[in-house]
C-alpha cells in the first residue's frame, strides 16, 4: 500500500495550458517534497514545504501544503514542453529519516 497517493497517474496537455497534480495521504508529514525526474536521471528537488497551509512559488510552479499536513498539490501555469517529466511527491513522517514517495505523475506537454 502506497503511503502517498498521487493523481492523476498520467497527464497530457497542450503548451500554454494549466495543470494540477495532487498528492494525498491519511498520514501527517513533518515535511513534504516535490521532485521532477527525467528518463535515465535521478529525481531533482523542486521544493520542500514544512508548515501546514504553506504556499511556495517557483516561477510558473505553485506548491501548496495542506493545513493538516496530509496532502499537497503542484500547479503549473502556462505549461511548456520543458515541464515534461515524472513529478514525484515525497514525505517524511515524524522522526522517520526515510522519504516515502508517491508513484508519480507523468506529465507530457505537447508543443
Amino acid at each position, binding site marked *: 500500500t502506497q503511503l502517498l497517493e498521487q493523481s492523476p497517474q498520467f497527464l497530457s496537455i497542450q503548451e500554454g495550458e494549466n495543470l494540477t497534480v495532487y498528492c494525498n495521504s491519511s498520514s501527517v508529514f513533518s515535511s513534504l517534497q516535490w521532485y521532477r525526474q527525467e528518463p535515465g536521471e*535521478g529525481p531533482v528537488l523542486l521544493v*520542500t514545504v514544512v508548515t501546514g497551509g504553506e504556499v511556495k512559488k517557483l516561477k510558473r510552479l505553485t506548491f501548496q501544503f495542506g493545513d493538516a499536513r496530509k496532502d499537497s498539490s503542484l500547479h503549473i501555469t502556462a505549461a511548456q514542453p520543458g515541464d515534461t517529466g515524472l513529478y*514525484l511527491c515525497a514525505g517524511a513522517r515524524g522522526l*522517520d*529519516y*526515510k*522519504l516515502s514517495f508517491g*508513484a508519480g505523475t507523468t506529465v507530457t506537454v505537447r508543443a
Partner: protein
Amino acid sequence: DAGVTQSPTHLIKTRGQQVTLRCSPKSGHDTVSWYQQALGQGPQFIFQYYEEEERQRGNFPDRFSGHQFPNYSSELNVNALLLGDSALYLCASTLDSIYGYTFGSGTRLTVV
C-alpha cells in the same frame, strides 16, 4: 560543485550473483540514503547511513546490505540476485533531510 556521483551507470548480472554499487555524496553532505526504483514506480527506501552506521532500514531483505566510509561515501551490496532485483538504484545525500535530498543519476541493474 559535483553533485552525487554513482557508479557504475549500468550493470548486467546473472541470477545468484552478487553486486556492489557505489556512491559519492554531494560535497558537504554527511547522510546517504539508497532507493530502489522499479519501472513506472516511485523510489522505495532501502536504508540510510549516517556516521558510518545504518540509521534506518526499509522493507528489504537481508540480502541488501550497505556501508558508509569515513569520507561519507557509501556502497550498496546485494547478494543472491533475483530477477526482481532489476531496477534503477538511486543514491541520495543530504546534510539536513528537512531541506531535501540531492539524488544521483542512478545505477541501472539488470538481472538475467
